[in-house]
């Protein structure tokens, strides 16, 4: 059984704003019967571009219904400009999180909202213009790329969880992997130019260090059964704790200096030094 939060269950059993707005001036429809879920979002937007009413109709599982209900509650009272900034993660967070296999339900909510705003403004969304990558669920490369970038996806499985692409026959898995590989290269390319020394607050350093750990260091260490944790940042000294196989590895000091420190100097600040917390 899925591990739904109480809030998901509550919104599923008692969904808010179910129904239609007959004279809605912003309507977004996404999904299909074949895909197993679909959402029609109807908004009433006033002259000041404030969303004064929101209703929905959804075909789908508990998390699809709960995500739709949450979305309507969130956007009521927002301006269109504010609503345009709502992300799928905002929807998932509103519900206290969704099982990872169900993240596509929150993505569907965000897409319906975008479609409704585009409908109000009379414009065409770029998603429809992309090239279909996953034929089973009709997902375009534009949608996949966006999910990779926005939600920092790293595996084909994650792409499937977020967009459904690759969840059917599996023929597009190679293409999805290519998109992931290309994105990783771009991320690296983007970060390297930031090498020039600059002043940073500790909070900024911690955030960037964690990013680098998560994106590059942990996946590498985990391949050898190890892991790393950030313990503290004191000025330019980064104190870490090596875990798992790395914790007892004779080469751990080399790993810290030659690999971890090098990565952090490249991508965060070139004056950083890395120390083991047990040293």
């Amino acid at each position, binding site marked *: 059984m899925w591990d739904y939060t109480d809030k998901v269950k509550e919104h599923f*059993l008692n*969904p808010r704003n179910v129904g239609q707005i007959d004279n809605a001036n912003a309507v977004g429809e996404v999904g299909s019967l074949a895909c*197993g879920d679909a959402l029609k979002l109807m908004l009433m937007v006033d002259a000041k571009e404030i969303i004064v009413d929101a209703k929905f*109709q959804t*075909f*789908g599982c508990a998390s699809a219904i709960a995500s739709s209900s949450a979305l309507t509650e969130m956007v009521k009272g927002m301006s269109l400009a504010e609503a345009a900034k709502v992300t799928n993660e905002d929807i998932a967070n509103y519900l206290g999180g969704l099982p990872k296999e169900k993240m596509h339900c929150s993505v569907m909510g965000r897409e319906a909202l975008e479609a409704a705003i585009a409908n109000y403004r009379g414009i065409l969304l770029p998603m429809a213009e992309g090239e279909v990558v996953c034929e089973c669920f009709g997902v375009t490369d534009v949608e996949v790329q966006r999910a990779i970038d926005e939600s920092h996806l790293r595996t084909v499985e994650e792409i499937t969880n977020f967009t459904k692409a690759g*969840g059917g026959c599996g023929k597009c898995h190679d293409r999805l992997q290519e998109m992931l590989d290309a994105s990783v290269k771009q991320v690296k390319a983007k970060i390297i130019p930031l090498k020039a020394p600059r002043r940073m607050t500790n909070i900024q350093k911690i955030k960037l260090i964690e990013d680098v750990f998560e994106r590059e260091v942990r996946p590498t260490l985990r391949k050898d059964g190890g892991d790393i944790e950030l313990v503290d940042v004191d000025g330019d000294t980064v104190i870490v704790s090596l875990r798992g196989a790395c914790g007892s590895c004779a080469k751990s000091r080399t790993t810290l200096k030659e690999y971890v420190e090098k990565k952090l100097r490249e991508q965060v600040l070139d004056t950083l030094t890395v120390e083991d917390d047990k040293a």
Partner: protein
Amino acid sequence: MNKTIYMDNNATTRVAPEVVEVMLPYFSELYGNPSSMHTFGGQVGEAIAKARAQIAQLLGADPEELVFTSCGTESDSTAIFSAIRATPAKRHIITTRVEHPAVKNLAENLHAFTGHKYRVTQLGVDSQGMLDLDEYEKAFCEDTAAVSVMWANNETGVIFPVEEMAEIAKSRGVLFHTDAVQAVGKVPVDLKKSTINFLSISGHKLHAPKGIGVLYVRKGTPFSPFLIGGHQEKGRRGGTENTASIVALGKACELAAVRMTVENTRVKHLRDKLENGLLASIPNAIRNGHQSKRLPNTSNISFEYVEGEAILLHLNTVGICASSGSACTSGSLEPSHVMRAMGVPFTAAHGSIRFSLSIYNTEEEVDFVLKHLPPIIEKLRNMSPFWHNRSKGL
């Protein structure tokens, strides 16, 4: 909390109280090892022999033709590997599109386990879930090593003519396996009158506990053990016997022989009452699977324009346990392979619900479901954009 109304017996069954009673001593005073050279262990060996005879009796088999395993999946794997090892030069197997994953996933991935590429013919089914025997006969070729076809389908309850299919396989000199985990105890099985080479059983589908299975291996059929180890099961399956569960399965089979009539009268009546009641009271509800050629306990109904997981979770809030072939419950993104093989349209496949009853269900429980399900479907349809489009004729 509501009383639990359990209608998910094709997933697993309640262990019969009579079965619990006979197995308990094997967790306490009768803990001996049946292989030991002392009476204390020996008496456990005798209990296993008795259980083997009880199971053989239900199947119309010789007790020596039974090998105890840990589950239906182990029985399936043992049978299929035995069959293909018997003719290692042949690289083609015949199965169906609607097999349980225990057979389907193994057949599709034999390459990974054997290092050889196997061609797999998966026989299709029609909209009633039935096989085409002409297609089956045409599927054989010189290279065919084995056939594996389930006796009854777990999702729809549809029964396949496996005895006839085994005859055809025999005439072609090909070994025949059937996964009968859903059939045994619900429909008569008499292996003496058939040419089936291998047959799999799972204890927990017929009111014995989880963790015990049986593989029937016809005398004279080539066999290779799947678990290599001690001399247990005459060297056909290593590992100390799961004595309590074996004794339990023996008792469950003895009970099943007696209760098969109840399954085919009272349980069937309850199933029909439930199914007919739901089809009559809920518009756009469709039965999946052949009406008569199916297990007496199983009903699979699609409720168009709604999604199965949402139905199940609403049923759950009133204590009703059922299951669904919808994508969202399967953990994948597509509806069940059985619904797709039958060509059930997407409008209906995502909203398919399986009720599987047992002798422990009552008329009151059926009435309770008949009362509570229609408003759930109505509520979800009122929320569904497709239902609204449909009512508007779009």
